[in-house]
Each structure stands twice: as structure tokens, then as C-alpha cells.
């Protein structure tokens, strides 16, 4: 009895021995990309958080110095505070600029301007300045502007990282 013809193996089946090891490599590489991306996002988030925390500390110190300055009479101590406040504002600006250069989400120039104006505007460095009570509006304004600058940074941080996808193709 004649044997039925053996069907020729399909193209896919014939390629399987070749494709199979390739698929393994594709899976390994894809897995590595996903894990690596997740690690990079976590590291970047931690690094940014640590920069923000340092800046918040600097803003708090600056706020305390400014309030102390306006509650102090014109004196050598007050003059030293004037120099420290100007120097610290400059250092704060440099820190915020570094943050914005590493991540354009952090645009804080307007909030910085308001804080600098409330801290060093008006009668700052004036010989006729008189000390203020702790309830003075200027002191409250300094605190408000300091909190606002911190708030702008926190919002930028949340916007960038809170809903950040862990998937590399959904950046």
C-alpha cells in the first residue's frame, strides 16, 4: 500500500530552532531594560529628594535669620546678618539653579524673586531702620514667601515623580 506523502514542515516550524535562542535573549534584554529603568527612576527620585531637603533646610535657616534681622536694632550684629542673608540668598539661588538645570520641572525664579524682595526689600540695609515686633506684617510676609518657595518645589517634585510610570516606553 502506498504511503501518504509526508507534509513539508511549515516555515515557522523550520525556523524554530533558530528563533528560540533569540527569543530568550530578547526576553532577557527586555527584562534588563525594565529593571534598569525602574532603578534609574528610583535613584533619580532619591537624589532629587535629597537636594530638595537640603534646599528646604537652607530656606528655613534663611527665614530665621531674616526674621531675627528685622527684630534687631541697627547694630554690628545686624550688619553681619545683612551680609549673611545676602550671601545665603546667593547660595540658595545657585542651589535652585543647579536643581532646575538637572531637571527643568523645577522653575522657581518667580517664588525666589518674591522671597528675596520680602527679605531684602524696603528698609533692608538702611541706617534709619527700626526693629519690628514679631507680629509685624513684613515678618509674616517673609514666612509666607519662604513657605511658597518650598511649596513650588514640592509641587514640581510631585508632578514629576508621583505619577511617573515605571515603564521605560511611557516616560
Amino acid at each position: 500500500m502506498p504511503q501518504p506523502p509526508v507534509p513539508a514542515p511549515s516555515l515557522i516550524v523550520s525556523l524554530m530552532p533558530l528563533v528560540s535562542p533569540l527569543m530568550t535573549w530578547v526576553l532577557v534584554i527586555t527584562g534588563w531594560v525594565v529593571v534598569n529603568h525602574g532603578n534609574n527612576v528610583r535613584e533619580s527620585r532619591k537624589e532629587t529628594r535629597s537636594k530638595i531637603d537640603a534646599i528646604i533646610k537652607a530656606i528655613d535657616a534663611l527665614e530665621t535669620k531674616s526674621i531675627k534681622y528685622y527684630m534687631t536694632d541697627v547694630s554690628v550684629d545686624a550688619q553681619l546678618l545683612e551680609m549673611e542673608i545676602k550671601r545665603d540668598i546667593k547660595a540658595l539661588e545657585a542651589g535652585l539653579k543647579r536643581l532646575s538645570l538637572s531637571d527643568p520641572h523645577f522653575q522657581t525664579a518667580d517664588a525666589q524673586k518674591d522671597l528675596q524682595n520680602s527679605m531684602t526689600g524696603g528698609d533692608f540695609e538702611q541706617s534709619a531702620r527700626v526693629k519690628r515686633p514679631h507680629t509685624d506684617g513684613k515678618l509674616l510676609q517673609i514666612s509666607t514667601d519662604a513657605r511658597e518657595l518650598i511649596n513650588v518645589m514640592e509641587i514640581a517634585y510631585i508632578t514629576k515623580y508621583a505619577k511617573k510610570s515605571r515603564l521605560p516606553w511611557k516616560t
Partner: protein
Amino acid sequence: MDNSMANETTINIVKNFSKYPGGRTPADGDYSGSRFRDQLLVPALKKYANVVVEMDGTLGYGSSFLEEAFGGLVRLCGFTPVQLRQSLVLRTQSDVTPLIIWEYIDEAIPEIGTSQSAVAKMPVMA
């Protein structure tokens, strides 16, 4: 000051004024905003079409100094914000200082009795 170009001059605050500018009036210190305005800015703005102010290198600026020096150009010296935007160039690495200065210039209100002579003496722009 650099006079290499006929219609432009550069004021470098550190070289031409002080590394430690501060205060509003001479009573507040030797390097006050009013002294900077009257001795350097106003003469330069009257003589040159473009005045470049290089601001880097100082210890920092108090807003009171900046208001007196730049806002005072409008409040007391008869310049208008439009004229200053045409002729004043602020050169600094800071993003904040120019914002502060232009806000003071734009919001300054000429004080009653302010001489308009500075405006009259402004060079005619080509």
C-alpha cells in the same frame, strides 16, 4: 568703563563700583544704590545708546539696593521703562536679579516734581 564702541558702554559693578554694594542712600553706606545710580548709571544712560551692566562677582544684592539704583531711574531721574528696555542690558548668571530689577523699573512711579531733563538728554536712537 569700556568705551570701545561709540554707542555702547559697559559698567562692571565689581570693577567700577564695589564688590559689596548695599543700602539705598549714602547714609546707609559708601556703595549705596543711589550712589551707583547717580555716579555711574545716569551719566552712562545720558551719554550712550546702550548701557551694559555686568552684575556678577559681588557678595549679592539686596532688593533695596536694586530698587534704589534701577527703580530710582524712573522714580527720580525721569527715565521711562520703555527707554530703559531699549538701552539697558543686564548681564548676569542670575535668573532672579533681572526679574527683580525689571519689576522695580516697570512698577516705579515718577515722584512729583521729578525732573524730565534726563529724558530730554537721552541720545536719539537710530
